[in-house]
């Protein structure tokens, strides 16, 4: 196994993360205090906030009655664009604490809405989708830069913040009930987005794929989908942010999987690795027809497995050449986010492969920052050197040496580690 040659654990970084983790509570409380001071300075007597909004948030509790909010960095407008979740966060190397700081810097001014009310041809609702609250929200979602807005608030914000235990969602910051909102400018909307918005005869999946092919990243697409701006007229709905993220990863991934369906296989086994925010990713590519599995190992003491005496928690989900027929019960949004990163790489190479991704969540991962972290870590796992192995068994053994579980346990949990799917052509003209 020639894995070790290119692997060096960056011990200083790990120590630094531990320190951050210990200080997490104070850090976030500081962010909230400074938000409160800014908020008091910025909000006028009639509780109107003039700010810019880089994005929206649609909550999912109590669906179909969702809370839908305009996010605005009250008093820190110059940094608005950087507060919007995107792949750039990885390139900047934001830390877990940075993510919390950014999220808690955005005021979520929200109102409750029935998702069906945002439909064009749905039940007549109190809100018209093209002006008023939903109209402003839609404009913010489809614009490609932060939009000037004025938001009327109903009372003062609740300066709490929320850290969900769910992997997909990013932490959310202060919330306030909103009365109304208006645009302070005519937002800039890219042409392809206008096209998908205006065509109300276009199924959402097709429109998402179109935007992706026109160079929009999944972050922009899920915001647009979330605002109910994609799909056939009568099907358009507000989509909770969390669901829209997974829907876009799945849809774009399915498109990419189709694009490599008949592509030649890679020639040799490759082992790629990346580590980000306390999560290590091992990506093993094996020659053959597309097959994919994500195995997650969650260390005791990490966010989803908080008991330090508990063993490593394992979860896995997989698909064969034709994709999955059932819902992903384990690994959830991370499954589709990691799959997207892998498929983008294979699509770019014009190759297919069998792909085993192992995600090791260490106890350094003290707060879930959102599934973008999985997507970006896997996307960036292919840069630079990679390890090789003669056989898949050798590769899996090599990876297991760096994981806190035995090969036997991995084989029990992982479909691919237990055995790779052969096809009948492999046996044509062979005799035992």
């Amino acid at each position: 196994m020639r894995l070790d040659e290119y692997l060096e654990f960056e011990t200083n970084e790990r120590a630094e993360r531990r320190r951050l983790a210990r200080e997490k509570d104070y850090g976030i409380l500081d962010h909230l205090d400074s938000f409160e001071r800014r908020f008091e300075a910025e909000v006028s007597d009639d509780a109107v906030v003039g700010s810019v909004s880089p994005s929206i948030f649609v909550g999912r509790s109590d669906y179909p009655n969702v809370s839908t909010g305009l996010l605005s960095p009250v008093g820190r407008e110059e940094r608005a664009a950087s507060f919007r979740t995107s792949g750039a966060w990885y390139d900047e190397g934001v830390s877990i604490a940075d993510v919390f700081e950014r999220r808690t810097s955005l005021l979520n001014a929200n109102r409750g809405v029935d998702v069906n009310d945002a439909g064009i041809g749905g039940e007549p609702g109190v809100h018209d989708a093209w002006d008023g609250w939903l109209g402003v929200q839609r404009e913010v979602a489809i614009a490609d830069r932060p939009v000037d807005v004025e938001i009327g608030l109903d009372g003062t914000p609740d300066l709490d913040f929320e850290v969900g235990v769910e992997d997909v969602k990013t932490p959310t910051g202060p919330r306030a009930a909103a009365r109304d909102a208006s645009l302070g400018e005519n937002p800039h909307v890219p042409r392809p987005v206008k096209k998908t918005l205006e065509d109300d005869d276009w199924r959402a999946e097709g429109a998402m794929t179109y935007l992706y092919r026109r160079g929009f990243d999944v972050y922009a697409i899920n915001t647009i989908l979330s605002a109910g701006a994609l799909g056939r007229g009568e099907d358009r709905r507000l989509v909770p942010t969390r669901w829209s993220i997974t829907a876009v990863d799945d849809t774009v991934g399915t498109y990419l999987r189709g694009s490599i369906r008949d592509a030649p296989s890679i020639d040799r086994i490759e082992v790629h690795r990346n580590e980000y925010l306390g999560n290590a990713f091992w990506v093993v590519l094996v020659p053959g027809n597309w097959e994919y599995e994500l195995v997650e190992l969650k260390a005791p003491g990490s966010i989803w497995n908080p008991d330090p005496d508990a063993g490593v928690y394992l979860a896995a989900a997989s698909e064969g050449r034709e994709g999955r027929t059932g819902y992903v019960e384990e690994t959830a949004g991370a499954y589709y986010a990691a799959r997207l990163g892998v498929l983008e790489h294979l699509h770019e190479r014009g190759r297919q492969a069998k792909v085993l991704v192992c995600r090791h969540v260490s106890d350094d991962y003290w707060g879930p920052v959102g599934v973008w972290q999985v997507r970006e870590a896997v996307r960036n796992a292919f840069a630079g050197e990679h390890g090789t192995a003669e056989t898949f068994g050798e590769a899996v053994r090599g990876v297991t040496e760096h994981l806190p579980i035995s090969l036997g346990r991995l084989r029990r949990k992982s479909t691919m580690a237990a055995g790779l799917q052969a096809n009948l052509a492999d046996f044509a003209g062979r005799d035992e």
Partner: protein
Amino acid sequence: MFKAIVSASTLQDALDSVSVLVDECKIRLNEEALSIRAVDPANVGMVDLTLEAAAFESYEADGGVIGVNLARLEDIAGMANSGDLIHLELDEETRKLHIETDGLSYTLALIDPDSIRQEPDIPDLDLPAEIVVEGAQLDRGVKAADMVSDHIRLRVDETAETFLIEAEGDTDDVDLELAREDLIALTAGSADSLFSLDYLKDMNKAIPGDAEVTVELGEEFPVKLHYGFGEGLGHVTYMLAPRIQSD
């Protein structure tokens, strides 16, 4: 030319065995038998079905090939009660299949057979072990394995002369050990292969509980499952590629 009358249950059993693997297939309407051979899009599972002319109440065919959407045809066959007879007649002009059962008539548009994936060649495998087991026993093993894992190991213990169905899950294990006396027949040989339960479950679904299933098995080789239906005049062979363990 194709014109036949068949019992609804025989037709349903035949269609079920194919539809677990593919959505569309070619049906060969030969003089002595109707036959279907199809492989799933991933080329992992294959089915080879023959329904002899004698399985029909009446059967006339002259070697044509038609392409059908299996789900549609199954739906129509499902409209008949199992004791009912189904009349099938091909209209060569319109390329439609007329189906009639108990006063209900249905005209099924056919698919151009050339647009359907090619029928596979059957790999010629000489598998060392052969086990004949009741469909119900196989069903027990598959169902139990599915509770703990998504793959299943089929193997023969040559010295103990037993057939073993095993599954290992994250925490739990399942073992079904069938000795010679639990089986209809056993030819022991070196056989140990791992299979995806996704596929085997689907195949198992189509196998009647009272069928005698012949299982041919090797070392990390495809498994062949044969069984009969329709009073022994229908024959199905499944072939499933293994999952290969790598050392």
